[in-house]
């Protein structure tokens, strides 16, 4: 059996891709990814039309996709996150059919359940052997975990592995195994290493960020969850990382041995693992080279699939065992609904990723955000888009006070007893608007450009076009 083919063009032909089919991609190479563009160029050159692209995320590097949309090669789009460059064009109404947003858990779940069948999955593999065993841990384009690609590999009708580091059979330390793979293509480069892993994000030095981070760590301490066996996920933003640093200091001082750190993994989480704060890291995506190295070299740092990370109808997912998650927000409303999909003018510039999944699973889901950014208050009467429903958010931490979801009276009591500065969320909104002024409401368009599908597969909200 010969799986190795010479070109992407040949693989595309062998897969028998036809008009109207769905192709899928994963985003571990992030803004350095070449694979989506290379494949889409071949599909366009083959004269195919009316394709649906199901990508775990889209970055600005994928802007050439817009041309394929304009020409009718691509007419359907599904992603968990769409960065501002591509998002803006979506918001301007470039597509007739609304984009479907899912979560990092909802996407593989819907693939597994056959709600979003994939005809051909393309796996960008930093290392692979000629039969398709592949890994993200090795090679010049190493990206670490291949977590989001597992469901695609397991359930697509055809699977093509594209690599720039072909090694002799068998690749012993594989992530995705050969029994899922139909074809293997070797190319010169699957990505630009500079865009694959960002430089390590620095801990914020902004005094406002440090106040928020310190509050965040104290909320976790006061919640009662910070004890042996503690589990934790945090984002890669400056304030979230600072919160992790404060948390680490508390854990070391009190000699608390956590069980696991989860998520997109950064150097700071690796540092906490090595310092003894956690027994294990569960890693669906590496954000920097320290995380890649750790995943490769430390057996306590585990790669997990997105299904295991967060799928809502599997037998269990790691998020179900999560104690605390720290998340961001572009807006949060007085019912604690959070928007991470659109900016203040209504343009798409993000997506849930694992936001809704971890918020739903964690015992304490915390939003950390400044009271306002560039004069725009974080708290509004109603978010432009519900990315994560307020029922799953427990507490908002700002520099102007900590607002607890009224649903969590127990938490409110604990934080009050710890002497933390509590504020009612409506009061926080008023306090902020006394500084910024009250923003005029944005006028949205009249056409739906995106559907936000909740992690269980239900339509949760829609995003309208922006009138310019």
């Amino acid at each position, binding site marked *: 059996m010969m799986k190795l083919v010479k070109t992407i063009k040949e693989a595309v032909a062998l897969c028998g891709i036809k008009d109207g089919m769905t192709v899928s991609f994963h985003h571990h190479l992030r803004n350095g990814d070449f694979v989506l563009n290379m494949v889409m160029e071949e599909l366009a050159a083959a004269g195919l039309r009316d394709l649906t692209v199901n990508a775990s995320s889209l970055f600005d590097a994928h802007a050439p996709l817009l041309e394929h949309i304009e020409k009718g090669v691509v007419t359907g789009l599904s992603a968990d996150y769409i960065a501002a460059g591509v998002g803006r064009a979506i918001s301007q109404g470039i597509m007739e059919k609304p984009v479907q947003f899912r979560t990092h858990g909802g996407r593989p779940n819907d693939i597994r359940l056959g709600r979003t069948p994939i005809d051909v999955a393309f796996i960008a593999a930093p290392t692979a052997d000629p039969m398709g065993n592949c890994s993200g841990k090795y090679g010049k384009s190493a990206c670490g975990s291949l977590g989001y690609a597992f469901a695609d590999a397991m359930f697509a009708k055809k699977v093509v592995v594209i690599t720039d580091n072909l090694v002799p059979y068998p690749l012993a330390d594989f992530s995705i195994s050969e029994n899922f793979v139909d074809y293997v293509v070797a190319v010169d480069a699957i990505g630009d290493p500079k865009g694959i892993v960002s430089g390590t994000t620095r801990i914020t030095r902004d005094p406002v960020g440090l106040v928020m981070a310190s509050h965040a760590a104290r909320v976790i301490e006061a919640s009662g969850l910070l004890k042996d066996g503690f589990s934790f996920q945090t984002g890669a933003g400056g304030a979230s990382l600072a919160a992790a640093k404060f948390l680490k200091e508390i854990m070391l001082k009190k000699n608390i041995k956590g069980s696991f750190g989860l998520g997109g993994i950064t150097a700071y989480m690796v540092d906490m693992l090595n310092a003894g704060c956690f027994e294990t890291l569960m890693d669906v995506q590496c954000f920097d080279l320290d995380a890649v190295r750790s995943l490769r070299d430390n057996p306590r740092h585990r790669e997990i699939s997105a299904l295991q990370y967060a799928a809502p109808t599997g037998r269990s997912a790691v998020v179900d065992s999560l104690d605390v998650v720290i998340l961001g927000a572009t807006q949060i409303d007085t019912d604690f609904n959070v928007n991470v999909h659109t900016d*203040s*003018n209504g343009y798409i510039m993000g997506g849930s990723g694992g936001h809704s999944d971890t918020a739903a699973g964690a015992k304490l889901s915390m939003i950390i955000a400044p009271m306002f*950014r*560039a*004069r*725009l208050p974080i708290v509004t009467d109603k978010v432009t888009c519900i990315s994560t429903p307020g029922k799953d958010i427990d507490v908002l931490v700002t520099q102007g006070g900590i607002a607890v979801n009224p649903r969590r009276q127990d938490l409110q009591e604990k934080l009050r007893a710890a002497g933390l500065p509590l504020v009612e969320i409506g009061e926080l909104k008023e306090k902020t608007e006394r*500084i*910024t*002024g009250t*923003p*005029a409401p*944005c*006028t949205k368009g009249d056409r739906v450009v995106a559907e936000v599908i909740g992690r269980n597969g239900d339509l949760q909200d829609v995003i309208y076009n922006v009138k310019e």
Partner: protein
Amino acid sequence: MKIVKVASAGTLESSDAFVEVAPAGEGVSLEIDSVVYAQFGEAIRQTVLDVLKDCGVEAACVRVADRGALECVLRARVETAVLRGKGEE
């Protein structure tokens, strides 16, 4: 107060505003570019006109490039630009 020369204050950093004033024959002409125009465009216009009035400026070309400055910041930038552009009296 009379604006006799082109002068500016502020920066294009986030949460700041860059304000430039220039001499004009009569009346105030005001050009606003703002990242929060949809939410605060009218408020920005009113703030700038208020400061000009308080400073006694009756004629000027004013250009504001706003990056989400709070009102107090915007006031300070306009006032400083005016003071830098006024004639010796």
